[in-house]
């Protein structure tokens, strides 16, 4: 089994060392795996995704994506990844299909091919009727689907999703789960952060528990559940972290005080 993501001793300090977001994180994600990183607000999830998607520079340690070092060759990493952010951030100067066509153009895909892929993705994600709509006319769930389409338009092999279901109603969340399962069955490596245990349990091949910038446990959902008499992921997390997923230190920034 090949490794899609390799993280070793990863550290991230903010504010000149006053805030320690990651404290020697070690983690491997396999090729084609659906991996969920789960932890409370401030655990370091967003910082981990930020480093892996080249938007955050680590203070120490090593991180590779598809075998490429995120610091030494950030351009090479960006070519191979798709990113769905925590809050939808479409280009509001462009309409829905233009968001996809231009994003494809940034990856060197010609307009005709980009338009074909965009139309296909909008159909698959069931927002075809919004093709020429302004992005402000989309609901939260539709904007999140647009973000998924944008992450897929250049056909990356690894997709990162940072708490993609936060703020979505149950119906939109279920629809998104269906889409994510489909992406997984297509063979893509999916790395998703969440602080919903049920979401991680439903979707992932393996779960990594993270808190205070460190990995607490890493295994399949079934093996993790088997660690406690009540078979609850939440109970096992509390037994490791000493707090539940609703506890948080620093909003949703992935930062904890050093």
């Amino acid at each position, binding site marked *: 089994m090949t490794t899609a993501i390799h993280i070793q001793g990863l550290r991230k300090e903010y504010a000149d060392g006053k805030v320690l977001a990651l404290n020697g994180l070690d983690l491997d994600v396999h090729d084609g795996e659906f991996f969920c990183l789960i932890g409370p607000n401030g655990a370091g999830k967003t910082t981990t995704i930020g480093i892996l998607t080249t938007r955050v520079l680590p203070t120490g340690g090593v991180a590779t994506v598809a075998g490429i070092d995120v610091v030494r060759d950030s351009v090479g990493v960006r070519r191979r990844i798709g990113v769905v952010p925590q809050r939808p951030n479409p280009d509001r100067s462009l309409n829905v299909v233009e968001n996809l066509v231009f994003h494809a153009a940034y990856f*060197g895909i010609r307009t005709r091919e980009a338009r074909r892929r965009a139309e296909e993705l909008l159909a698959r994600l069931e927002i075809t009727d919004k093709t020429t709509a302004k992005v402000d006319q989309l609901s939260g769930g539709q904007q999140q689907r647009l973000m998924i389409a944008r992450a897929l338009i250049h056909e990356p092999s690894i997709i990162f999703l940072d708490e993609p279901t936060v703020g979505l109603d149950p119906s939109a969340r279920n629809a998104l789960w269906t889409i994510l399962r489909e992406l997984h069955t*297509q063979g*893509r490596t999916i790395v998703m952060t969440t602080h919903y245990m049920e979401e991680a349990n439903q979707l992932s091949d393996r779960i990594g528990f993270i808190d205070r910038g460190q990995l607490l446990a890493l295994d399949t959902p079934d093996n993790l559940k088997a660690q406690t008499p009540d078979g609850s992921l939440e109970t096992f997390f509390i037994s490791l972290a000493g707090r539940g997923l609703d506890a948080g230190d620093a909003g949703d920034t992935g930062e904890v005080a050093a």
Partner: protein
Amino acid sequence: MTAARHDPVTDDSVSARQTSVDRPVSTARVFFALLRRDLVVSRRELPFFLVRTTVQPLLFLVVFGYLLPKMGFTRGNYQSALLPGILGVSLSMSSFQAVTFPMVMDFGRTNEIEDRLLAPVPVEYVALEKIVNGVFQGTIAGLVILPIARLLMGPIDGLTFAHVGTILLVTLLGTAVFSAIGLLLGVLVEAQQIGFMFSLVIAPMLFFGCAYYPWVGLHVVPWMQYLVLINPLVYVSEGMRGALTPSIPHMPLIWSIAAQLLLLAVILTAALNRFKRRAIA
């Protein structure tokens, strides 16, 4: 329940996908895609662009280039000094606004610039593309204002288009300097500070940028003649005078060109550094 398992290696569609992703993309191609996006957005906002770039210079032209001369309040070749200055302001402010407003919004609450920061080029290229777009928009603004100014002001003593190369050089330099200033301020200020920035930085820059009076005329207030040299607009205004009305007294062209080159190097370096720090935490 976990998602269905599969073997990615035997999945033909995935293999094809990964091959397409692994194909390198040239930086130039990504750069032009970024530029094309900005040109599409600019074209869509053309009416707002024209209003933004022409209203203020036109008001100045009507008052200082048309009404005051007609009333007899201006003497000699004031219009010859005013026209290049007005042009300098137009192209400088257009370039500045073309970069700084989108930058403030893109880095704002929704972080819209992320789709471009994920493009497979070093992030500095995303900033450099904004500079090129600013140069383009500033040049267009100059081309719009020049014939209008000529129509409003009538024949202008000493105005010549003989030195096309020099005109082009000072235009490109002026627009590039102000695009770089726009980039620097765009990554430094937050959306709610834009009004503050205009009152504190842009307004004094406009009034003490030797746009509405020639720098050589400031010899009557020597300390001010030296103090205004910290203002980049002085070199744009005087460079335009040196290129368009060379027979009218102006700062030596070589000074204004050298100063703009120096300013461009310093401000662009600072702006790119700040941009990178804002783009990558």
